[in-house]
């Protein structure tokens, strides 16, 4: 998988794997792990009774994409827990999924999954951060700069595509657990020349955030955002802060 390299802030470096380091739990590897899957692979895989039951409310047309999301999550999780015998994924509405490894619910991790047009993208990382991913089809993207860009962004010379900017805003919304409740025009994101996220503001409040795009699937933009803000717990739980809402 090709990953665009970019220089990391020192506060993020310690959270990413430089080697296969192990923490006190010998099963678990520290770091950031991502994975992709497609609806085409679903039929070749086996799903648990709970995973199948969880898909009953999903329209049949989207069910294979739902299972592709489970597959991608499993693939991300197994990189973190390479000795796991079973990995079960419970998808939830408007909240990050619950993952069980060998029957134990994972609590010290941050997860995110996204789907688009038959593909799924998932990521897992230590919960000292919050992550969000988004995958978006390039062809047919219809949103315009006046619909999704902040005043500041509209004032800058365009260096990146609307679909890339949109994907980063969506991923950031997921990392913040607010979904569409924060209008994309309230977000001001900064990308470097390579198209990696190096900063973000919401209503002129700066966030400590980084992001990267993956070139795994032709025709789709896939991005991951890592929210490294040390105010993250209060940001996610503070009901009085209108931007961030309730932690899922």
């Amino acid at each position, binding site marked *: 998988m090709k990953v665009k390299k970019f220089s990391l802030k020192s506060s993020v470096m310690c959270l990413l794997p430089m080697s296969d380091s192990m923490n006190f739990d010998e099963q678990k590897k520290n770091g950031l792990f991502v994975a992709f899957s497609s609806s085409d692979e679903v039929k070749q895989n086996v799903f648990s009774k709970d995973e199948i039951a969880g898909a009953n409310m999903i329209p049949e047309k989207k069910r294979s994409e739902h299972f592709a999301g489970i597959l991608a999550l499993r693939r991300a999780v197994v990189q973190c827990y390479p000795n796991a015998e079973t990995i079960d994924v419970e998808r939830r*509405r408007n909240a990050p999924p619950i993952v069980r490894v060998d029957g134990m619910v994972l609590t010290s991790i941050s997860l995110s999954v996204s789907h688009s047009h038959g593909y799924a993208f998932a990521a897992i990382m230590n919960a000292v951060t919050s992550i969000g991913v*988004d995958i978006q*089809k390039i062809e047919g993207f219809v949103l315009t700069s006046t619909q999704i860009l902040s005043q500041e962004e509209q004032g800058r010379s365009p260096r990146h595509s609307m679909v890339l900017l949109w994907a980063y805003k969506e991923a950031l919304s997921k990392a913040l657990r607010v*979904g569409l*409740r924060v209008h994309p025009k309230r977000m001001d994101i900064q990308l470097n020349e390579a198209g990696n996220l190096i900063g973000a503001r919401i209503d002129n409040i700066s966030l400590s955030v980084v992001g990267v795009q993956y070139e795994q699937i032709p025709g789709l933009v896939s991005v991951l955002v890592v929210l490294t803000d040390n105010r993250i717990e209060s940001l996610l739980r503070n009901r009085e802060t*209108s931007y961030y809402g309730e932690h899922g």
Partner: protein
Amino acid sequence: MVNMDKGDIELRTREIFEIISRILDIPMQSITLDMRLEDMAQDSMQLFSLILAFEEHYDTEVDYDDLVEIEKVSEVVSYIEKKLTTSIL
């Protein structure tokens, strides 16, 4: 409590079905009130496009904090009806 005339509800429902069908490229006859918007949309762009389409058609602004309570088509109908009734009063 907003009093809704049955004819108004049917008209509004049909309008909303038409918008959903057009934006999400779904046959109108396959849309039902208990379907979830998230399940019908292919991705986040389509969902946001749907919100913009409702805002444009009804010349109103959606309060984005309300979106957490709007998941099903039936809830969209109720929300739009409430917004329109509030704007008239």
